[in-house]
């Protein structure tokens, strides 16, 4: 067989057909109008698997235009394979400009992080969401959780958090930490570490959440009240790190632990790769940054 491609299958511009985009756009508008409420939508099969960002991709594909500049991150990094793959997808099907710089992007699609650089008005942050229902692990039935949201009956969630405190002395939820939006809907912030929760509150950017497999879209308009659930005697607190980024010396950022060897050597570096690079370009140096690094045998394991 000669490798002559046939016209056996052709795809639309920006992958989604216009009718699908309209359906998703309508869901987005409803989501914005009812902050934190999960709008059911007729999610489509996408050319990447469910669970790999199909909700975020559908949202991005429905809002993106030729003037947009797209950034895609996974775990805060632009160079993780799934982020690379999704960015390449949009480059291919929508021919849009892409960037790794948070400040230059008009649309940022993310999995598991909110960038460290503060977002600005006019930017849209699109989250990939695996399980949009914050009550799902307490009550597996959609029919039941829907009722709870309708009646604003969130006692179960408080019971769960309080059981944590009784058992562990603290709320043992470290990511996908539930929030309450404008005093009404309890919402799943997607599996971002709770470190990022405060960034959602009163953000100048529009935040859109897409869950493809679970067929839900929800939203936070800019300047919307987003409160992490807690108790008076156990207030919400974010993770703190004992040391700055080993490469750029940034403090008060979320750090990844990188294993250096098999004798317990490790270092902590920014999870937000763009933020880290920017800081190093500005001359910030951490104790393990290449220019000032110790000889490998002298390198001390952190902690």
């Amino acid at each position: 067989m000669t490798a002559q491609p046939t016209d056996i299958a052709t795809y639309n511009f920006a992958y989604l057909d216009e009718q699908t985009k309209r359906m998703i756009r309508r869901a987005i508008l409803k989501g914005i109008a009812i902050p934190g409420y999960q709008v059911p939508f007729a999610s489509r099969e996408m050319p990447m698997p469910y669970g790999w960002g199909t909700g975020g991709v559908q949202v991005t594909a429905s809002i993106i235009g030729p003037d947009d500049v797209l950034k895609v991150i996974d775990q805060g990094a632009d160079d993780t394979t799934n982020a690379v793959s999704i960015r390449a997808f949009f480059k291919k099907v929508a021919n849009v400009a892409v960037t790794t710089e948070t400040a230059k992007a008009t649309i940022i699609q993310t999995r598991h992080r909110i960038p460290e650089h503060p977002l600005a008005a006019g930017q849209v942050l699109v989250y990939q969401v695996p399980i949009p229902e914050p009550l799902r692990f307490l009550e597996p039935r959609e029919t039941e959780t829907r009722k709870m949201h309708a009646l604003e009956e969130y006692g179960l969630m408080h019971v769960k958090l309080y059981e944590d405190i009784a058992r562990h002395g603290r709320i043992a939820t470290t990511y996908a930490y539930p929030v309450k939006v404008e005093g009404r809907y309890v919402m799943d912030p997607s599996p971002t570490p709770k470190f990022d929760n405060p960034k959602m509150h009163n953000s100048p950017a529009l935040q859109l959440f897409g869950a493809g497999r679970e067929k839900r879209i929800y939203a936070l308009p800019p300047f919307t009240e987003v409160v992490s659930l807690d108790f008076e005697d156990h207030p919400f607190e974010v993770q703190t790190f004992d040391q700055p980024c080993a490469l750029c010396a940034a403090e008060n950022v979320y750090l990844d632990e990188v294993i250096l060897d098999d004798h317990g050597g490790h270092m902590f570096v920014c999870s937000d790769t763009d933020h880290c690079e920017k800081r190093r370009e500005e001359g910030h140096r951490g104790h393990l940054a290449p220019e000032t690094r110790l000889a490998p045998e002298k390198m001390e394991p952190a902690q």
Partner: protein
Amino acid sequence: MEIATQSIEGGFADPVFNAQTVFRAVMDAMAQPGSVQPLPAFAHPPAPLSAMAGAVALALCDNDTPLWLDPALQISAAVKSWLGFHAGAPLANTPADAHFALIAAPAEMMALDGFSQGTQDYPDRSTTLILQVSDLTSGTPLLLQGPGIEKTATIAPARMPRHFVEQWKQNSQRFPRGVDIILAAADSIACLPRTTRIKTMEA
């Protein structure tokens, strides 16, 4: 011009990108209530449907969205035929069945609670109202607060529905149920989602 010709002409010249541009303006307006989003005229529907309201309808409506027309539009065969040809949206039997409502004469429109408000389980199943207004500056100024607004915003759409502020207050009280409004002026768009609270400047 004949209705047949009128109904075929005046759609989006570039359906994919025109629809995207109109949608982004509506999205930004819905996300920042009271902000005025400028938009060129992409559609040219027959009167009395305005170019802006027509463009919003083309961007958002299709055969999955029953559409309700106010009496001013209802009597125009040309308008119905144009919407049918370009959007394919079926006409809703009653306002309560409508996903979208096009209102050419807001000052004479029926009460907001006559439209679908959604349910407590599915508050998204409510009517989105597209109101044709001549401008967003010459009417009674409305002081707005709520999600999407950093402190306050002000907008003054002309010829709004009767007792609008009172009706809107009731709409807010139905939250999470309630209608959302897209204001289609001559060259711009603004939105009032159900979360927006209006503090009138004049009682």
